[in-house]
């Protein structure tokens, strides 16, 4: 079916019907509250709206003090990871039609990072772990001036999956091991180490493997797969972690 005709047009055919959806949002204002509290909002929504639209509607029409991060609104910038109905997701990639709206929709901040306000957490510990794995190319060879380093299609494919990371922290803050004490490097840092460990142009894999052979490194992963399931970019996080573990055992990528 390569030629499109009028009646093949999909999307817009659905009857446009709106629903009242109840959102329960875990609020926290450090200036006033000692403990987070739940607050409910009723919002008129369409099936194709996203949870981010709902948050915007609340902020823009009901309560301007509701605070959350967001930017791109289509799952590419990693600003709005939050716990929606008990699972980490991006608010801008979660459609109302995929949720059960006969019940209230629970929205709360991601877990395991310091809560700052409403849905905002302090991301600094997360980025600190990221920085610690040396997430940048270190190459000893110098390419011909004005020329790219050569890399075969197959070598490029090895680390393709982990280049997709948008550092949203959905994975790390879904990890039960990370929740326990926040010491674990966390899946996102390992994913970004993986991205370079398996890049054929890089010469610093050993250092990164040593870093991740830490007490708080890959060995703390208990393969609970929450990270893989939470990743909005569909990265096979647990698989990447397994590959790093094996590289450490082999002593090379």
């Amino acid at each position, binding site marked *: 079916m390569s030629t499109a005709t009028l009646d093949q047009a999909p999307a817009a055919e659905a009857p446009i019907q709106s629903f009242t959806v109840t959102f329960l949002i875990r609020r926290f204002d450090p200036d006033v509250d*000692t403990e987070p509290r739940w607050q409910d909002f009723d919002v008129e929504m369409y099936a194709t709206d996203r949870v981010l639209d709902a948050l915007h509607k609340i902020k823009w029409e009901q309560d301007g003090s509701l605070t959350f991060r967001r930017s791109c609104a289509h799952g590419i910038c990693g600003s709005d990871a939050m716990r929606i109905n008990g699972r980490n997701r991006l608010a801008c990639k979660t459609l109302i039609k995929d949720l059960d709206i006969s019940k209230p929709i629970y929205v709360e901040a991601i877990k395991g990072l310091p809560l700052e306000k409403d849905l905002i957490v302090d991301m600094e*510990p997360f980025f600190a772990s990221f920085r610690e794995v040396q997430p940048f190319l270190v190459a000893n060879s110098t390419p011909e001036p004005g020329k790219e380093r050569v890399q075969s299609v197959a070598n490029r494919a090895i680390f393709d999956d982990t280049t997709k990371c948008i550092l949203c922290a959905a994975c790390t803050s879904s990890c039960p091991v990370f929740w326990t004490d926040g010491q674990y490097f966390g899946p996102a840092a390992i994913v970004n180490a993986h991205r370079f460990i398996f890049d054929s142009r890089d010469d610093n894999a050993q250092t990164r493997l040593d870093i991740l052979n830490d007490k708080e490194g890959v060995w703390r992963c208990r393969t609970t797969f929450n990270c893989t399931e939470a990743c909005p970019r569909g990265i096979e996080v647990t698989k990447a972690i397994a590959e790093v573990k094996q590289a450490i*055992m082999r002593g090379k990528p």
Partner: protein
Amino acid sequence: MTAIEFPGEPRRRGSNLEKWGWIYMRASGVVLLVLIFGHLFMNLMVGDGIQAIDFGFVGGKWADPFWQWWDVLMLWLALIHGANGMRTLVNDYTNPGTVQKVLKGALFAAAAVLIILGTLVVFTFEPCPAGAPADLLPSFCAA
């Protein structure tokens, strides 16, 4: 500044045996699977199962070095495996400090004492202790 505090503190670093612990859990796990299933099968499934277990049954088994080694191996592997697993839990749920040290110490002590005790029991076991009623002893003691 943050009202809900970060559970952690600056990351501790240094050389460690985590890799070996991890490998050990898997290697011992596979062996334990065989040993424990064999153990359970022999003790609970064959014959009258648990009802058949008594001093005589144990004595009968340990008369055979095969079962002696079987059980000793199981003892070592399982205790170390279990204690190491428990250490993981202690690491997860307690913060570095006295409590954590005490718990780990207790785990180590318990495992060490029981390993020594168990090994001694298996190898110094006397299947036909003098003066015991013959009906409690393995059948071969009658001789």
